[in-house]
């Protein structure tokens, strides 16, 4: 809709269009990508009454400052996020995350920061007017794939929306954040490459999340993990959450935009049920890893997903 758009007055950090990801192209080197936090992605679309895979805008630490031009829309911010709505009369209203709001011409949304987390989401009723590539609008900046020529959203960009809101009803979903710093993992394919002592260290010592973390990976710092076989392997496919250990012995967890193929040995793999929790860990967090088995991981994922479904069904009208 050419007459309904957001003007970007501040871009925020790593602000991109994302959805559930782009599947079926990994053999051509295209990682699925998509929203880092699947739970918050599902929540925001539920709040807005959108289809569950409608595209949203993801930001890290600081979100954008947006001015709405048009007649009427509805939006929500999901996550643990501090934001304000500045209406056309210049009144400032404190915003609540995980709640939908109506918005009219001239209103601004100032997404100031995430609190004890990294990623937050901004979505609108009916979604954004952007072109998909291979059935997805997810942005992969390193290969310029996705809307906005595969780039991050920047100052002065216009973000067009598909449709105006049809009703004024608003909703919220209440939930508690999980601040537990224990991450459960399965043994990786090269688990036996590492010394007995290092394997013990990995599951007993703390590993610090460093600043060198982004959508591709999270670099950790801690007791050096010694490799007794080879610090390089024949490059092989990578799965999300793989924990690789390069020659310097400091682990790197490969995240949503990971390379599709890699040649470092992998000591472990984060379980799917703990992935949402992991990616929200800010630099400075001390992680502990716990080894579990496949059956436990499958059961935990089932529970995890049932909990998300329960959350979504707990939608309350305001």
């Amino acid at each position: 809709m050419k007459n309904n758009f957001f003007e970007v007055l501040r871009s925020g950090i790593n602000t991109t269009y994302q959805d559930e990801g782009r599947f079926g192209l990994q053999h051509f080197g295209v990682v699925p990508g998509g929203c880092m936090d699947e739970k918050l992605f599902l929540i925001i679309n539920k709040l807005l009454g959108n289809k569950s895979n409608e595209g949203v805008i993801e930001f890290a630490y600081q979100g954008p400052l947006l001015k709405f031009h048009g007649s009427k829309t509805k939006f929500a911010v999901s996550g643990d996020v501090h934001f304000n709505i500045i209406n056309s009369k210049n009144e400032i209203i404190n915003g609540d995350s995980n709640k939908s709001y109506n918005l009219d011409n001239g209103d601004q949304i100032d997404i100031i920061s995430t609190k004890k987390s990294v990623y937050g989401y901004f979505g609108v009723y009916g979604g954004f007017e952007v072109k998909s590539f291979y059935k997805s609008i997810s942005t992969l900046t390193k290969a310029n794939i996705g809307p906005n020529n595969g780039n991050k959203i920047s100052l002065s960009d216009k973000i067009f929306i598909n449709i105006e809101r049809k009703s004024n009803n608003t909703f919220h979903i209440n939930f508690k954040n999980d601040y537990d710093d224990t991450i459960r993992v399965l043994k990786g394919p090269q688990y036996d490459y590492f010394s007995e002592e290092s394997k013990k260290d990995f599951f007993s010592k703390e590993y610090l999340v460093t600043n060198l973390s982004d959508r591709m990976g999270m670099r950790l710092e801690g007791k050096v993990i010694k490799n007794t076989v080879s610090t390089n392997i024949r490059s092989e496919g990578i799965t999300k959450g793989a924990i690789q250990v390069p020659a310097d012995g400091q682990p790197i967890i490969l995240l949503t935009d990971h390379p599709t193929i890699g040649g470092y040995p992998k000591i472990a793999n984060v379980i799917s049920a703990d992935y949402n929790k992991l990616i929200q860990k800010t630099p400075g967090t001390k992680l502990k890893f716990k080894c579990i088995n496949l059956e436990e991981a499958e059961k935990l994922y089932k529970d995890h997903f049932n909990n998300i479904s329960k959350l979504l069904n707990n939608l309350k009208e305001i």
Partner: protein
Amino acid sequence: MKLSNIGDCGVICDFGNQVNREINSQVINLFHFMKLQIEEKKLVGLLNLAPSYNKLIINFDLKKTNSKKIIDFIEKIDLSKFNFKNDNKEWEIPICYDLSLDLENLSKNLKLDKEEIINIHLSTNFFIYMIGFIPGHPFMGDLDEKLYTSRLKTPRVKLSPGCVGIVEKFCNIYPFQSPGGWNIIGKTPTKLFDTKNNERPCLLSPGDGLKFKLISKEEFESLENEK
């Protein structure tokens, strides 16, 4: 072939430690077979297939299936009954060696004339073992032993799209601007990954053959301008 889980939403099919065409062809054969199972909806919940030199990794949706179901399925099939080789293409990709970054150094280190390096590279019938790392990026082999070289000690921070590199018996092409540690012997104007093409975004496929064709700097520039 050894089958096991990788994480809780992946299965790894391991064909052994060797890197050669025979083993890689088996990987690609299984890849095509599994791709067909997805297309014909014979297996639910499969999301992605990642073939590499000697392994195939299958990623799936844990809400719909699990690694045991997939491993059981693969154990029952007789792969010798399938041969997808005929689907593979032969490519001729233009290369300009005047735009090399490392040919001088390679010539010194390998004790070969630049002409000789170029001739060996041009006469190699490359086989595409796998595509990955970043979109459209091919890993090809096998180079003549005379050209075997190791990675640069310090990888370059920024390589422009189209750079052609070599390391050990392998040759690659960088489809996007990226960091890289391979020895750059030339540059191609051919676009390997087209984000505007929704049907067939990636030019090359694992298992395809490839030969380079010499072009001049002028030809390179005119092909670049046509893009």
